[in-house]
């Protein structure tokens, strides 16, 4: 018996589920009750012809002609697809194959009938690394894009990318800021490893090619962060000729600082300790030289800087205000290179090259300030005129050494070491004679502080979709003060004396850390990041040793603040989900456990960011982040002194917390201009402050500082604002205008009568204008102007007398009014820079000439009291530190 059946039904979404189930059961019944055909049925040869028919119609006719039931759903086929065939004495199987060839369907012969089903779409993964063609250095955040479907991804912090696509032929475009785009044809028939080398864009040197950050190829981590264009930074005006990463950040919206950068970064009303400054993924506690004038990041060693201030991916944690992720250069594994430069403030040299060609490279660089001979000579002369000997001196410097080795195509080892610091010396000696008496006085003071970082990293690619990074780090921050004082009188036995005292103070933080970070890319719609971090913190807030030959042996003492050990463990899970080509979600959670002094804090930090790009030119975002911070900086001044103490949360001092809401839009105004704006609201809790008047002073209060927990109070802060950034990103003139309107305050129950008061760095209006003009192929001119409302402090013109309850006058005191009630004059300055670059057979050289603070604005660093003995009046004197400062920098590259 033959049984002929053609099932022709439409699987449309509005068919009720129960009806579908019933249909399926009927189909199964029919299938099992039908005559069992052998596979030989499809080998039956028939004559068959169709002309300009739909595929469905062709199949229908074939079923009629062959007496073989064929079941299919018509939505399997493109209605526009036409079939025209003519077969003579041809097996049915061959005819079926021909009809279905141009479709995405295939047939299955079962239970005497042919079922037409959708072809299983096989996906394969294109994975590998994007690197610099000339140096072999891995490129971070390079775009990888299928030009037809616009699906894409970007390379991670180690240049790795993974893109899973259906097995087809593609044109994959690789692009990166400042490099020529490269389009690679790819026939994806299997998982395919690939290494792409991009050529630096030499023809448009220092003119920035904007990398696309459209969704979804941009990825949330790219659209959430500001990426500092290093090429542009190199031609912008600088302080003393030193290009500086953290100073450049101050020209972006939402970032504020003290005078000329002193006092650190204050991002969206946050304290300076609330920024996670990462040096190749390792947190740095004091990332500054010269109290904040310069950062520890020598520009020549910087490879990539990404900066997060509003939308925080879940892989970052530990600070509540911002993340500055600085990645340093890996080294050239193809050619040897050397670079040397000399500027007004510092000189530096860098050497790099292959240890094993294309596999291993080294990078060595050193920088040192060279003003110390001048400072020493000047102060020596000055003291000589005062009848004294001695000098004052200051210098800073650092070295970095890196080695990397690709043990295989899937394994890469990196070893890096950094050591840098500052040194301040002050020596003063004088001799006085009166008859037979001779007094000899000597006072020496030396302050040293700096960071040491060691990082061992292993990249391992488990497969084409899973990338792992294992990191072990050891970092320290040390501060040491060494004072020696000697005073003696000789020549008269009755009055002779000799006094000697030496005080050594030191504080230290040590972090020993292990991290595992995994990137899992199952398909272009999902990008999973997960990881585990474990850090042992060791805090030695301060130790003092005093030696003296004083009459009182008790003055020889050695004491220290209580050392504190803490363990911080964290896990995170972050998912980047392309919900729709124009809608992207980045969500995750960072959970941490902090164990200190028998107290354990277990806190979860949910993060969410949604990006919507309704049109090519428009993009909107909304984000919510909760952040916790277990470390606090005890400071009395906010000036970024190295004496400020890092202390952990303890049983009594809870972690800092922040809730950040961010809503923004970006509008692409044609090819050259873009306008971005964000509104934010930030609530900070458990902020710490010294209670009013509580003091910590090295040497004298070291013992009482042991109870620092008793001296602090906790409060809260709030910041809200609107930030605008208008950028011109193409053309011979490029630059940006940024404006921030913000309000930040603090509230502590035990300060200022509990009334909220303005934050010290509550700069209501901040405006930056930056422009770079390519005058000629070798010449560039740039200029920047910065304006911000003045910082806040307390000044007074009044004193008052304290009278005790018995009516006795005790003493006079200053009346400073409400907390931070006085606003300093506005900060502003204009800088400009000429840059000339010349290529030579042996390499290249470049020259920077510029002026910092062109109109010599006396921006106030601090205000001190000034007593005038003629008028017997006390007044105020403002102190400015950086007047007009012409500078140069000459760089030679071989």
């Amino acid at each position, binding site marked *: 018996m033959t049984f002929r059946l053609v099932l022709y039904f439409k699987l449309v979404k509005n068919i009720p589920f129960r009806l579908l189930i019933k249909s399926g059961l009927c189909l199964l019944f029919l299938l099992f009750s039908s005559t069992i055909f052998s596979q030989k049925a499809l080998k039956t040869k028939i004559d068959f012809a169709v002309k300009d028919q739909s595929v469905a119609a062709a199949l229908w006719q074939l079923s009629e002609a062959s007496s073989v039931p064929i079941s299919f759903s018509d939505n399997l086929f493109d209605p526009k697809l036409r079939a025209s065939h003519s077969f003579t004495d041809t097996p049915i199987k061959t005819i079926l194959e021909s009809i279905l060839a141009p479709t995405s369907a295939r047939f299955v012969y079962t239970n005497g009938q042919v079922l037409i089903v959708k072809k299983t779409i096989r996906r394969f993964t294109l994975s590998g690394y994007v690197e610099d063609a000339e140096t072999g250095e891995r490129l971070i955040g390079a775009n990888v894009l299928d030009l037809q479907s616009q699906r894409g991804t970007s390379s991670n912090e180690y240049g790795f990318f993974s893109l899973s696509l259906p097995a087809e032929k593609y044109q994959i475009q690789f692009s990166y800021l400042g490099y020529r785009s490269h389009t690679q044809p790819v026939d994806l028939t299997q998982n395919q490893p690939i290494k792409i080398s991009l050529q630096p864009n030499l023809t448009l040197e220092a003119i920035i090619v904007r990398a696309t950050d459209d969704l979804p190829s941009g990825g949330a981590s790219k659209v959430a962060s500001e990426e500092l264009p290093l090429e542009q930074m190199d031609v912008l005006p600088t302080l003393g000729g030193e290009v500086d990463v953290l100073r450049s950040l101050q020209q972006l919206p939402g970032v504020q600082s003290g005078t000329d950068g002193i006092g650190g970064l204050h991002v969206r009303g946050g304290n300076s300790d609330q920024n996670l400054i990462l040096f190749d993924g390792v947190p740095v506690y004091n990332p500054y030289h010269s109290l904040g004038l310069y950062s520890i990041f020598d520009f020549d060693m910087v490879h990539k800087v990404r900066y997060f201030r509003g939308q925080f991916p879940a892989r970052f944690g530990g600070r509540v205000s911002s993340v500055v992720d600085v990645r340093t250069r890996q080294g050239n594994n193809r050619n040897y290179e050397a670079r040397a430069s000399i500027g007004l403030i510092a000189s530096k040299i860098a050497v790099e090259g292959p240890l094993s060609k294309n596999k291993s490279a080294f990078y060595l660089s050193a920088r040192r300030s060279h003003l110390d001979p001048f400072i020493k000579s000047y102060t020596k002369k000055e003291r000589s005129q005062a009848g004294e000997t001695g000098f004052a001196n200051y210098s800073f410097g650092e070295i970095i050494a890196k080695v990397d080795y690709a043990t295989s195509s899937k394994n890469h080892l990196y070893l890096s070491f950094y050591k840098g610091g500052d040194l301040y010396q002050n020596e003063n000696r004088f001799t006085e004679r009166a008859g037979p008496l001779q007094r000899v006085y000597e006072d020496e003071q030396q302050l040293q502080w700096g960071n040491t970082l060691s990082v061992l990293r292993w990249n391992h690619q488990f497969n084409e979709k899973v990338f792992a990074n294992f990191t072990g780090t050891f970092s320290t921050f040390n501060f040491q003060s060494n004072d020696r004082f000697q005073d003696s009188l000789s020549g008269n036995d009755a009055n002779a004396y000799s006094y000697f005292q030496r005080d050594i103070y030191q504080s230290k933080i040590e972090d020993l850390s292990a991290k595992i970070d995994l990137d899992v890319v199952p398909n272009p719609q999902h990008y999973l990041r997960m990881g585990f971090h474990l850090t042992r913190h060791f805090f030695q807030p301060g130790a003092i040793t005093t030696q003296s030959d004083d009459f009182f042996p008790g003055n020889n003492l050695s004491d220290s603040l209580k050392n504190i050990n803490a363990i911080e463990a964290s896990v995170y899970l972050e998912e980047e989900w392309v919900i729709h080509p124009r809608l992207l979600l980045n969500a995750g959670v960072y959970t941490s456990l902090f164990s200190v002094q028998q107290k354990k804090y277990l806190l979860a930090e949910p993060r969410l960011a949604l990006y919507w790009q309704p049109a090519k030119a428009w993009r909107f975002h909304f984000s919510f982040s909760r952040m916790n911070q277990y470390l606090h900086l005890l400071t*009395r001044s906010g000036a970024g002194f190295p004496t400020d103490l890092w202390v952990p949360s303890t049983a009594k001092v809870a972690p800092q917390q922040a809730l950040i809401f961010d809503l923004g839009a970006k509008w692409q105004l044609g090819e050259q201009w873009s306008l971005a704006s964000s509104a934010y609201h930030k609530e900070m809790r458990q902020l710490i402050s010294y209670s009013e008047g509580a003091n910590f*002073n090295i040497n004298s209060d070291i013992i009482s500082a042991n109870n620092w927990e008793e001296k602090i109070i906790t409060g809260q802060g709030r910041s809200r604002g609107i930030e605008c950034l208008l950028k*011109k990103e193409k053309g011979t003139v490029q630059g940006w205008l940024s404006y921030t309107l913000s309000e930040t305050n603090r509230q502590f129950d035990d300060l200022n009568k509990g009334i909220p008061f303005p934050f010290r760095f509550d700069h209501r209006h901040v405006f930056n204008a930056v422009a770079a003009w390519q005058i000629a192929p070798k010449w560039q001119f740039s200029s920047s102007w910065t304006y911000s409302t003045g910082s806040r402090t307390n000044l007074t013109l009044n004193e008052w007398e304290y*009278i005790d309850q018995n*009516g006795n006058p005790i003493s006079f005191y200053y009346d400073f009014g409400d907390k931070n009630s006085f606003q300093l004059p506005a900060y502003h300055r204009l800088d400009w820079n000429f840059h000339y670059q010349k290529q030579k057979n042996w390499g290249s050289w470049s020259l920077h000439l510029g002026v910092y603070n062109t109109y010599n604005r006396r921006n106030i660093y601090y205000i001190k009291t000034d007593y005038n003995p003629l008028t017997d009046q006390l007044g105020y004197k403002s102190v400015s530190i950086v007047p007009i400062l012409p500078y140069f920098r000459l760089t030679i590259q071989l």
Partner: protein
Amino acid sequence: MKIKYLFFSLVLALLFFACEEDIQLDSLENKKLVLFANFQPDSLFKLSLSTSIPIGSADSLLVQYPSDARIQLFKDGEYLSDFEFVPFTRDQVRPFYTHEHRAEAGAIYSIKAQYQNYPMLSASSTIPTPPQLQAMKVLEWEELNDNTNPDLYFYFGKVKLPLDLPSATTTYYHLLVKQQIIRYNVVGSDTVKNSRIVNLFSRLPKVQRPNLQLEPGHLLESSEIAADNSAIEVDFNFGIDRSFELKGPIYFELRHVTKDYYLFHKSREEQDLANSQQSILYNDPVLIHNNIEGGIGLFSGYQASTKRLTW
């Protein structure tokens, strides 16, 4: 004009709009009235009123002590009457105002003060519950004679003051330890004594861990003050010259004070300390807490318990 030139010119043009600005000291606050009053149960209200003076002229001659200010007293929001001015007296270095009303525990007292064109002052406070100072215990006592001066004696002591501090709420205490020293001289055949009190020290403990630290002061040399929730151990030393001094009793006065009282005196001590440390230029100035709206000072009640120790 091409837009790129316009953009670039805009940046350069900012140069011409920029200008210097000086600190406008005129914008700082003007002179203020300064008022102090501490009151305890069953005592008359007594307050001092003065004016602030320009900085750098810490000369008491410039301080005015208004005699014709109007100062009103309110109890639980109800006006009682005005304070009366009392000029300089032999025992009172500064003039003061007084009120016949005797303070009562539990009542809320408010004042308003008006003088010439100064902003009106207002403040309010209450009297806390009495502190529970138990019988003290002498832990150590030693008398030492200085070999170089047979009349000079040093005394070392340590006492334990049991306290009944509440554990649930934060309360503030002021501990004052006073040594009476009686000076005498022989006039003819008569011995004339001048009794005086020397403050050994004054502490402002804040439960649960009283915040005890050293304070520069006469006769107080060194001590480590142990403290816990139930007692304060106080050890101290002092010296007298027996050729003209006699040692009298030591008084231990524990005051239960308001938070305003505590914060005022604590920050006042710290400004003293900060003013002595000129080396840290950029430090935040120390602001002294006060609870006088429109002015400066402290208006606060307290309640004390005193123990006397005779050596």
